């Protein structure tokens, strides 16, 4: 009984807290909902990357590509981007002028599935060339894809005359999700607006919970164990009958799915997609979260995401204001004009270097990984376990 409690107690408490949070927040009237939603999106992204790096040991430096793909799927099929076509399916968007609404407008919930499937496919396509590669080269190839795809979106407004992605301007006015058949008393849920953020929050929360559940199931499944063995010694794994090709492709596909879902939500939430938002820095930010929290450790990764994105998005600007007011009060010029958010690359860089030097297994380590990192016999390493020079 107590083992059960230990196992399920903490998650249950956390889930209850997460569900009740908006009520508390509404009562206290702090302005935390928006940052919290952004943080939760990143939790999902980190969990997705955790599958690729943490479980399967494949260093993916281009994870932002899946984020972008998910967002653009929503952008393509839930906005007026393709005005040449008029097609609507379960969408919340209506034409104010009463006529037909140009563009493709499909319900957000359907698009979640579409985005997931599409990014999974892209994950397989991106992963396929890397199968024979190990270590650094794998990382560089994924980095290459991570650079190509957003640049493609940035320049995709003139593909032999066809405007696929609307280029740097991005796709605007993306339809909001909504559950139309609800009674009018829940009108915030009929069409998610910008004033009441609770429907958004609960949606992403449910998505994250699904992600966590899938992560846990995967970790303890045959596939999860196959990942561990491929990660530790690919040759031995193959000798044991595990197909490294499909095992790795599954890792990419599953990781991509969650990246895509997070991207889809992000597109709908901000209602505008700009290709510059999907830069290499985001890939590294997510990598940082996974590393800081602990590769392969679900709690760790969640903690890493909350800490880093909380720092980046919310805490640094807040601290900036506090330092300014202290500076203003003390009459200190330097303090009142310092710009803390400027230093966030710096902080991430330091975190990466420090973590690797001091505690590479992360804050809440996955025990298996921790052992791999402090392996006394480096000769039996894998693509990532290999020492820098055998």
């Amino acid at each position, binding site marked *: 009984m107590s083992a059960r409690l230990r196992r399920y107690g903490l998650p249950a408490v956390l889930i209850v807290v997460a569900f009740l949070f908006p009520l508390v927040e509404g009562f206290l009237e702090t302005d935390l909902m928006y940052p919290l939603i952004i943080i939760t999106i990143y939790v999902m992204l980190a969990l997705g990357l955790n599958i690729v790096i943490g479980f399967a*040991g494949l*260093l993916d*430096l281009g994870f932002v590509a899946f984020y972008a793909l998910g967002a653009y799927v929503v952008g393509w099929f839930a906005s007026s981007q393709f005005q040449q076509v008029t097609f609507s399916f379960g969408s919340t968007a209506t034409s104010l002028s009463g006529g037909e609404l140009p563009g493709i407008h499909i319900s957000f919930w359907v698009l979640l599935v579409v985005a997931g499937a599409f990014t999974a496919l892209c994950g397989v396509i991106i992963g396929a*060339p*890397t199968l*024979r*590669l*190990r*270590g*650094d*080269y794998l*990382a*560089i*190839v994924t*980095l*290459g*894809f991570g*650079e*190509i795809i957003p*640049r*493609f979106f*940035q*320049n995709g407004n003139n593909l032999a005359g066809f405007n696929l992605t609307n280029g740097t301007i991005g796709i605007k006015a993306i339809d909001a999700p909504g559950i139309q058949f609800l009674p009018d008393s829940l009108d915030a849920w009929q069409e998610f607006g910008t004033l009441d953020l609770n429907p958004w929050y609960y949606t992403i929360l449910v998505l994250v919970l699904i992600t966590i559940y899938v992560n846990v199931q995967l970790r303890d499944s045959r596939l999860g164990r196959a990942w561990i063995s491929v990660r530790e010694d690919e040759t031995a794994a193959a000798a044991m009958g595990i197909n490294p090709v499909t095992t790795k492709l599954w890792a990419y596909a599953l990781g991509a799915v969650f990246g895509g879902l997070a991207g889809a939500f992000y597109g709908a939430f901000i209602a505008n997609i700009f290709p510059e938002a999907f830069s*290499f820095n985001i890939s*590294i930010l997510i*990598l940082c979260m996974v*590393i800081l929290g602990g590769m392969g450790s679900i709690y760790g990764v969640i903690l890493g995401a909350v800490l880093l994105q909380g720092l980046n998005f919310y805490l640094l600007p807040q601290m900036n204001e506090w330092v300014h007011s202290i500076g203003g009060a003390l009459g200190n010029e330097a303090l009142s004009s310092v710009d803390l958010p*400027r*230093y*966030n*690359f*710096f902080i*991430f*860089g*330091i*975190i*990466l*270097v420090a*973590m*690797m*030097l001091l505690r*590479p297994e992360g804050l809440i380590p996955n025990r298996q990984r921790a052992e*791999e*990192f402090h*392996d006394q016999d*480096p000769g039996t*390493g894998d*693509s*990532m*376990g*290999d*020492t*820098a*020079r*055998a």
Partner: protein
Amino acid sequence: MTTGEATKTRSAALLDSVRASSWQSRLAVALVAVLLTLLAVEAVQAPGQFLSQLLIGLTNGAILALVALGYTLVYGIIELINFAHGDNFMIGSFVGLTVLSGTFAGLGLFGAITDDSGTLLKVAGVFIALFVAMAVCGLMNVGIERVAYKPLRNSPRLAVLITAIGMSFILQNVGLIWKGPAQIPFPQLISDNKVFGPGSILFRWNDLFVVGVTVPLLVALSYFIQRTRQGKAMRAVAQDKEAASMMGINVNRTISITFLLGGILAGASGVMYGLFNGITVFNVGFTQGLYAFTAAILGGIGNLTGAVVGGLLIGIIGAMADQCIGTRWTAIVIFAVLILVLVFRPRGLLGDRSAVQGGGE
């Protein structure tokens, strides 16, 4: 730093490799042939423009080659992709800029050297900027190795790679804080006027400058590697670290010297980039670094000649892509080259398989 494969006659070896080649390599060769013919058509149609684009490509490529050498030196010796190398290049350009502005940390050392200064002052300025940048970047590279990479020499590869990424970020932020997020102009010390060239093919002073700095550096590097003891030590360590240390070579010192060399090259190319393009920005290291890395891979990682060849090739590919497909697609083309090379021929053009342990086939 290539190891020798068993020597055969050139033609016999070539025939063997053709027979043994896979369908992928044949496809690749065919593709390259098609591209070259298209280029040739273009060349014939507008020779003036083609040649001036070629020249732009070569000069950009020369700058890339120096950076690529840094990557290849380090990878050859400790099999690490020094992610921070591109940002080292960026710091080099910033240092050069600071030297030319004459003030550092609020201390005015001498008057700023600008477009209007006298020729002698300009020349002196360029040389001083180059030397200072080379020194700073070289030492910085050694420092980075000592602090971040050396402690992890026996750690899994993942750890060092991530540390390198972290260092890259730190350097970028240093650049951001130092000079801000916008592009910063370099004083135009080398004039744009043409030295010689018929019609619209302009071989300008800046092109001459790039050649004039790159070639001596390459010659010096080559001499160092091939003819000096330390160079021999580097080649030995690259081949087999343990054996080298058993031969009495101080491995740690050799590695440090390698990083020093890489840093010197990065510093020089940073200043050159700034003077040639008239501009620098805190995140230039990222893209140029990736291009240079592509060049190193294309030429054959671990192979110095390969790095230079790769650099020139990437420069030309970039210029041709600019010309024929449009500048917006150039980055995608180069990254595609990167991916294709890594997937289909990780040893590059001139590299050999032994230099690529654990990185591919």
